[in-house]
């Protein structure tokens, strides 16, 4: 059945996207980690009571600014943002896959999931 074959091809593409995403983000997190470990002045933050990570590291624009300045913590955070964005990319790709096949039920389902993920990422 052409439907099944198309499903399988889409699944393969999505699997590769996930793999590339996770290894890219691990590399960025690793780079930030090495820099963090190399900076001797860095002390383990107090984690026993919750204050929340400082504000620039909570938002994508703040993280991008810090990463551009090569701040180790911001680089780690950038890698984590890439990691969080990987499943979103996967859902967006499957959305296009379903649109191309004019499969409106699953286009709708993918749209809802995309909307929820985007709202989670930008909404507070």
């Amino acid at each position: 059945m052409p439907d099944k074959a198309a499903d399988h091809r889409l699944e393969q593409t999505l699997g590769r996207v996930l793999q590339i995403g996770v290894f890219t983000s691990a590399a960025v997190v690793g780079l930030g980690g090495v820099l963090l470990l190399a900076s001797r002045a860095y002390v383990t933050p107090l984690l026993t009571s919750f204050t929340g990570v400082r504000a620039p590291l909570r938002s994508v624009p703040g993280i991008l600014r810090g990463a551009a300045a090569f701040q180790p913590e911001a680089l780690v955070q950038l890698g984590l943002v890439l990691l969080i964005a990987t499943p979103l990319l996967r859902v967006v790709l499957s959305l296009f896959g379903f649109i191309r096949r004019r499969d409106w039920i699953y286009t709708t389902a993918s749209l809802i999931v995309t909307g929820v993920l985007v709202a989670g990422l930008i909404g507070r």
Partner: protein
Amino acid sequence: MPYPLFCLILACGSILAGLLGSMTGLGGGVIIIPLLTLVFGVDIRYAIGASLVSVIATSSGAAAAYVREGFTNIRVGIFLEVATTLAAVGGAALAGLLSPSIIAVVFGAVIFFSAIQSLQAQHDISGADRPDSLSVRLRLNGEYPIAGKMQPYNVTGVVPGFLLMAGAGLISGLLGIGSGVVKVLAMDRIMRIPFKVSTTTSNFMIGVTACASAGIYLGRGYIEPALAMPVMLGVLAGSLLGARYLARARTVVLRRVFAAVVILLAAEMIFNGLMGRF
């Protein structure tokens, strides 16, 4: 504690958690959160943030291998993700309202249940006898390779499966774990999807579900880079190692030992939570 030492210990613990989590199917989160909170005294909110990102890493890292084998049912995945992502956002919102001690008690109860569930014998069902009308309309029924041939299977219980999946999403968003056990339960027991298909599709969905709440946690400052870095890299390395070399070595003994450890951790989380120590 100097940061390099802190990192080293956490990375080792995370590798072990990822390894055992992937071998037993319970996931790394059930070990990571108790390890961070009970042993290192880390606030449970930072622990949840670090666990959540490692859940995404594990799910995405393993999905590529599973997808290649052709077990994943992408329609079932997307359909049920509507339930899990919506509920995960709700779970993350709920987490902001509850006190850390209550979250710890709920966490203990959930991992206790998961550990018990992981000890149950697996019945490898080959799909439902008849599909229900919704699964036909939604074209959820699929096929998967078995001994080199494609074996079709039927899906049933679409509505109860969808609702239980929302429960799994809520737990994932609230506690920062994958809640793969509940996901498999919904697909395996209720929707009667073959075991191989339900485990791999569940893994496929875990990353998306965690993604829905991760953005919210990032905005709240739960994701602390100094902590998440060694935990995420460690759990990812451990789970890849576990999936590659030891997937076939799912021995009964290992399962039992790990379940016993998780039950002890669950008891301690519940006890400390009830005493208001979080």
